[in-house]
């Protein structure tokens, strides 16, 4: 049994209150961070403190509390933007990544996409980066086309070039890291080729922001979206980073309070960025929580988070090979993948795998992971997926392996 690959750098489990929880007297082995991450005490406390001490509606209030709440909210935006290398004014809070993508598909898409145009996505997208484009194409007469996924779980830049050479692509949308395969896509290179072809790009970084250092400006996409709850933050908040000129030219998404400058009887004018895209009372506590989450991640250092999870993923790949009958899906090289490991166990359906290993409190996900087209491409009905967070260590991988060995015995 190989243990050489594991040199975990982080020892942060005690920062996460949920790990004090035991179920049936056993500790929690949480390997489902790709679905949602656990939250450090700093995030929970920041939100609690906001409600206990600073709660008021933001913008427009002149009293002290309202000013504090506004400062907390806008301060969180500044730190979130700094964390990802983006501009504050072009960092828009949404409900989640899904809403961010829908915002672009509706507001930008309806104004810029028409019959005969192509929206290009990939076979490895999450449903949230597929369905909004299907709706857009159905509503406008545009065509939705896909980049293939290779057997190793990667995309082809040559195929991207070929699609762009067709001259009809208006927008290309692709994941930074796949939530099923773990593949880290060359998004900066892709965005630059898309731009050179005169099209816009959207990167779904829902899995990337929690796992690797990201730099929105360096990626250079027109839209870069992610979701707070996978990045140690609360549910109910997502982020859309957009290119300023594109956001300024776009019509708004939702109409209502906060997003307007002047409302007249028949028409209105829009607020400045980012508020033009933030209609209604914002998710204030959630923004405060997300601010605390990026502060926490910033203190850990995303280089360290990546190194930790890379080492752990490498260890997991080695140990899973020892189980026998485990087939891992996605790139075999830990340098090319994040801490998301989908696998099949021969003769045991993923749903049964998840059920059996849950008896040892090992939490993994089984199913199509909101990527039914990718499942079809891979020729599997479903997979089991173990995914890592900064709080995991080698003992979690060992527990997974032991649980899988036991699961195999039941079905032997």
């Amino acid at each position, binding site marked *: 049994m190989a243990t050489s690959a594991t040199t975990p750098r982080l020892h942060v489990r005690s920062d996460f209150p949920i790990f004090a929880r035991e179920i049936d007297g056993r500790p929690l082995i949480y390997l489902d961070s790709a679905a949602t991450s656990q939250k450090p005490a700093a995030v929970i406390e920041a939100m609690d403190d906001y409600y206990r001490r600073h709660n008021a509606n933001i913008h427009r209030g002149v009293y002290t509390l309202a000013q504090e709440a506004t400062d907390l909210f806008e301060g969180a935006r500044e730190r979130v933007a700094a964390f990802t290398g983006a501009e504050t004014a072009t960092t828009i809070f949404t409900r989640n990544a899904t809403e961010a993508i829908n915002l672009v598909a509706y507001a930008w898409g309806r104004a810029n996409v028409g019959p005969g145009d192509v929206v290009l996505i990939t076979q490895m997208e999450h449903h949230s980066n597929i369905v909004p484009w299907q709706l857009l194409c159905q509503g406008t007469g545009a065509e939705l086309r896909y980049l293939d996924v290779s057997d190793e779980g990667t995309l082809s830049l040559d195929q991207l070039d070929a699609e762009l050479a067709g001259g009809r692509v208006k927008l290309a949308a692709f994941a930074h890291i796949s939530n099923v395969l773990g593949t880290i896509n060359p998004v900066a290179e892709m965005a630059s080729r898309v731009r050179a072809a005169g099209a816009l790009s959207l990167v779904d970084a829902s899995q990337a922001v929690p796992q690797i250092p990201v730099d929105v400006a360096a990626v250079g996409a027109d839209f870069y979206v992610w979701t707070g709850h996978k990045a140690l933050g609360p549910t109910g908040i997502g982020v859309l980073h957009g290119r300023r000129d594109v956001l300024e030219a776009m019509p708004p998404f939702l109409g209502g309070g906060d997003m307007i400058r002047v409302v007249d009887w028949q028409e209105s004018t829009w607020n400045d960025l980012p508020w033009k895209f933030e209609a209604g009372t914002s998710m204030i506590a959630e923004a405060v929580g997300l601010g605390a989450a990026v502060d926490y991640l910033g203190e850990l250092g995303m280089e360290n988070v990546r190194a930790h999870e890379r080492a752990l993923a490498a260890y997991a790949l080695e140990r899973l090979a020892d189980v026998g009958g485990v087939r891992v899906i996605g790139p075999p090289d830990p340098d090319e993948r994040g801490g998301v490991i989908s696998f099949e166990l021969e003769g045991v*359906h993923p749903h049964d795998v998840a059920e059996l290993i849950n008896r040892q409190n090992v939490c993994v996900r089984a199913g199509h992971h909101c990527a*039914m087209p990718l499942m079809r491409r891979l020729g599997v*009905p479903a997979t089991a997926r173990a995914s890592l967070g900064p709080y995991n260590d080698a003992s979690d991988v060992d527990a997974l392996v032991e649980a899988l060995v036991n699961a195999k015995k039941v079905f032997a």
Partner: protein
Amino acid sequence: MDDLYRDYILDHYKQPRNFGELEPHDLEAHDHNPLCGDEMGVHIRVRDGKIADLRFHGQGCAISQAAASIASEEYVGMPVDDVGQLDADWVIDLLGIPISATRRKCALLNLKVMRGATTGDASWPE
């Protein structure tokens, strides 16, 4: 022995009864369990208002496959009109294992498909 994965469940999973296709057939339906990606179809041959023969097909977990296999032995010979009267408890009692909320749809998929084929009502059995 395992409470859920009993020997007879595993036996039906590994050697499902009445599995495959049935040509020609009189009734058919196909459905999914959106939670886990299980899919199941059925072909039914009817004679004198009764289910003369049937075959399930598709892919799924041990619970969904074993449930279909076990239930298939009950469906054969049943008046077609009776299928619509069967409810969730009927399947779960037949299985004889503790089915948690998260596995309920796995157990019920075969009845959903059967009801879809015989009554056109493809809602989840209650």
